[in-house]
């Protein structure tokens, strides 16, 4: 197989996850709530796919599916061409080595009773290596993430937040993974430390040819690491394309607001995104963003916009993105009335 024909590291095809909300009354019916709907994207090997969106937009649901912590209700998730929800037990075991995760909270993610050398080598032991052999690898792993060798004997509380996140990264790297799921890995860190950890993540990616799914809400941070960016709103991807283009010249009205807000140089209140995500039990008809979109009109209430090409490689789900980009669409205000 030539390099071009090799399947991408990750390919999501129409990925959907619905949860059932238990009935409110004894004989009532459970109601389905969609956490992710029809999500499709690809991540080539060695690249980073950034997912952005507000809390409740479904970003973490996608991460959980990729980690096999949840199973999809519909759609497929392929890793190196293999459907990860149709694996034999042996394939699953191998997959669990191949994909590792780093989460937001470096305090909750590390056992306070384990020393650093044991923490970073635990995945090796979980995959069958004996303790002595595993812990012999600790100094190398600690060095890899820039922690001093004497940190092997320390407990988590003796490390700062940034160092703890380095430990979490070292632990993820211990089993030589190909794919890292990074769910808000720097959000809980101080700005100066954030830069250190992001630099480390980029360096690790280059050195070890890692593929990243990076979830974040800080657009500058997402742009720093990502090649491609997907913007989620209320469970759906609304925009997808090269990171620079999406975050510099966003096409969807939602992304446009996010980018303007994140620029942070406009005076307070000059850029606003009012309202909240709609009620998942009673989603609006048509476009899900219309209840907050300044450009919403009757078309938006009538039909759900499909993903369309705005430019090559750049998809957007908005009926009016051309007019909005051209400044030809009047701001009529959001259509607050739902359904």
């Amino acid at each position: 197989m030539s390099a071009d024909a090799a399947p991408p590291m990750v390919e999501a095809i129409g990925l959907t996850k619905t949860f059932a909300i238990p009935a409110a009354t004894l004989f009532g019916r459970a109601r389905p709530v969609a956490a992710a709907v029809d999500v499709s994207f690809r991540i080539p090997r060695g690249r980073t796919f950034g997912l952005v969106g507000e809390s409740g937009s479904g970003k973490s649901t996608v991460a959980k599916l990729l980690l096999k912590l949840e199973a999809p209700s519909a759609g497929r998730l392929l890793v190196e061409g293999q459907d990860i929800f149709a694996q034999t037990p042996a394939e699953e075991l191998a997959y669990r080595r191949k994909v590792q995760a780093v989460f937001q909270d470096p305090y909750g993610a590390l056992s306070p009773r384990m020393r650093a050398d044991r923490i970073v080598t635990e995945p090796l032991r979980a995959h069958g290596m004996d303790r002595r052999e595993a812990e012999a690898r600790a100094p190398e792993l600690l060095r890899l993430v820039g922690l001093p060798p004497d940190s092997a004997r320390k407990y988590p509380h003796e490390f700062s937040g940034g160092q703890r996140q380095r430990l979490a990264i070292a632990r993820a790297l211990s089993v030589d993974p190909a794919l890292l799921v990074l769910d808000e890995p720097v959000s809980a860190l101080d700005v100066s430390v954030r830069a250190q950890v992001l630099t480390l993540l980029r360096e690790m990616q280059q050195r070890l040819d890692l593929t990243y799914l990076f979830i974040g809400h800080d657009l500058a941070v997402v742009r720093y690491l990502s090649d491609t960016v997907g913007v989620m709103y209320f469970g759906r991807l609304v925009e997808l394309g090269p990171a620079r283009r999406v975050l510099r010249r966003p096409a969807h009205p939602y992304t446009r607001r996010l980018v303007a807000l994140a620029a942070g140089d406009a005076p307070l209140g000059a850029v606003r995104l009012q309202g909240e995500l709609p009620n998942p039990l009673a989603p609006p008809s048509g476009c899900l963003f219309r209840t907050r979109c300044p450009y919403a009109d009757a078309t938006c209430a009538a039909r759900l916009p499909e993903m369309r090409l705005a430019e090559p490689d750049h998809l957007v789900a908005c009926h009016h993105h051309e007019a909005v980009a051209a400044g030809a669409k009047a701001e009529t205000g959001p259509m607050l009335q739902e359904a």
Partner: protein
Amino acid sequence: MPHGEPLLAIRGLNVEFGLPARPVRAVADADLTLAPGEILGIAGESGSGKTTLCAAVMRTLPRTARVSGRVEFAGKELLSLPEREMARLRGRDLAMVLQNPMTSLDPLYTIGNQLEEVLRERRRGGGAGRLGSAVEVLRRVHLTAPELRLRQYPHQLSGGMRQRVLVGMATAAAPRLLIADEPTTALDASIQDEILILFRELRESAGTAVVIVTHDLSAIRRLSDRVVIMYAGRIVEEGPTVEVFRAPRHPYTQALLASLPRIEEEEVVLQPIPGQVPDLARLPPGCAFAARCPAAIPLCREERPRERTVGERHRVFCWRAGEGAA
């Protein structure tokens, strides 16, 4: 901002924890004044003492803390005030909003229950003309469908809505000073701005002074009149927000601003501050930032820098700041 009588004046405030023989000074020699209606931002990394400073003003520090110095609020010295009087001030003249809107509300009671309880308490305190009804309180913080929210439980509200409820509760009695400790950290960017706008409205409608403690420098830049930068328990720079952000004078402030991601020729540039925040129990004799400072000279490691005025109400604690070399 007026230069008249300050609303809050902190003089030589020290907060220590741990054994007296080997104390950890979470806040050291802090001097700070705040005018009525002024918005002050306090920035600094974890462990810089910003939260401890606020807790010292509210007198909510744990018993093990040793506090010295003076905290004058509207003519009263808070540190020596009997607890009963302090309790009367809290919530009415002095209010606080915390970081975590998830745990600050009781999950077993409706929003209405909890809000009514606060209002009853404030009314008993007397002299609160602005209180109004629970619905009015929620309307002031622009919560949608306020009548519905009163009947709902905290878990039925989003994080942003909960933070609005908490800001409403804290400011129901139009306090003279609101201390907000990382009030937007747990919220989405779109909601963060809306909460910051509430603080500004509060200053405009009720003349409330606001101290906002955050590591989000963008929030401080856009909201506050003045900014204080803390490092390892000490104030290292203080000045008008515009000036400090345009021309920071302390190397730490400079490094902190440079560590924010910025875009240069299409690339996102990050400039981490090398090294680690020092251990508060083992601070060096000189400037605590010296070990990480690109401008440090031998003097910085030996002697603690003295205060230097570098502009109108702009002061900095750095030996090199006066030379323009830093």
